[in-house]
């Protein structure tokens, strides 16, 4: 019969050897010597305890773990904690309104260029496109949403209308009338 395999020696060391192989072990000096050597060294290993560190080490270790976790940077794939939709949505609304106003509100022409070109005519040409863009950008945003986002304060809309030029007020009136007509129909 063949000698015990490595697997079987481990089973024998742990007292789990199959009965039919026990018979071989009982009659084989080579396997018995090998098993005795393995068992002795395992017993030696079990007795070799780890030296106990100083009692002061453990609280220090816990503090080290805590500090290491604090310093552990979040993975690059994670969003920063402030990047949430509750923050991003109002910011997006605000950005759209500001962008719309920047495009729509006519810039103050330099004093020396006034003589060169007629600003009213140029603005009048551009106004419909600009207002169409503003309408498209902020068309779905109501005053309450903009106010909740902190973009518009109470009374700001009225003040803005008072600051419009005659042409802008005229255009606004036209847009409002068109909107009312559309709402009626």
């Amino acid at each position, binding site marked *: 019969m063949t000698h015990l395999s490595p697997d079987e020696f481990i089973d024998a060391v742990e007292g789990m050897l199959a009965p039919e192989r026990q018979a071989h072990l009982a009659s084989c000096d080579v396997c018995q010597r090998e098993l005795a050597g393995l068992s002795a060294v395992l017993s*030696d290993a*079990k007795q070799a305890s*780890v*030296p*106990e560190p100083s009692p002061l080490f453990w609280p220090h270790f816990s503090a*080290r*773990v805590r500090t290491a976790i604090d310093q*552990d940077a979040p993975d690059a794939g994670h969003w920063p904690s402030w990047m949430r939709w509750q923050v991003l949505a109002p910011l997006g609304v605000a950005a759209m309104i500001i962008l719309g106003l920047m495009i729509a509100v006519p810039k103050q022409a330099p004093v020396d260029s006034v003589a060169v070109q007629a600003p009213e005519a140029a603005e009048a040409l551009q106004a419909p496109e600009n207002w169409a863009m503003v309408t498209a950008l902020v068309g779905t945003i109501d005053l309450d949403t903009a106010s909740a986002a902190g973009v518009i304060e109470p009374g700001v809309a009225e003040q803005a209308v008072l600051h419009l030029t005659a042409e802008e007020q005229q255009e606004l009136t036209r847009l409002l009338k068109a909107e009312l007509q559309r709402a009626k129909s």
Partner: protein
Amino acid sequence: MSHESAMAIQAWALPVVKPLAELDDSELVSAAADGSRDAFDVLVERHRRTVYQVCYRFVNNHEDASDLAQDAFVRAWRGLKNFKGQSALATWLYRIAVNVCLNRLSAKAPAMETIDSTDHVPDLRIEGAQHAMIRQERAAAVRRAIASLPEKQRATLILRTYHDMSHQQIADVLGSSVGAVKANFFHALANLKKILGTEP
């Protein structure tokens, strides 16, 4: 309203909050996964010694063992959400510690045992100084021999002998088969026998 009814309503309205130290591992893991650092501190306190011992047996010196154990706990913190409780927390922590050690070993040769780590003072009132010294030297020789084994043999021997893990659990940790674990254990013991037999 009767007194009993009032008490019942009060018990319903005020959930009993157990101190963290009284929670079991799974409750602490759940709290820590939700971001409770205090809950994780309790887990560290409970398992730091065994995790440190796994690491110590790998590297055979206190400094590296404490660094590795710390690294293991940081990784455990990062991976808490992935711990589904299929195994005991201790087994999961051993797995992390073993992987940390194997990664470190592949990058760095093991350091020798430092003098202070063998500075365990025996109780001279109980055993003779000479006997204690022989035992201590033998233990240090065994630790050195273990630390010199090939990585898989070392991991298998440590987890089986000192942490009572089954062959299957060790196979899971090392990503191998039960047969390979038994073969590694056999070769680890055979190599230890050879090293200790020739060591002065």
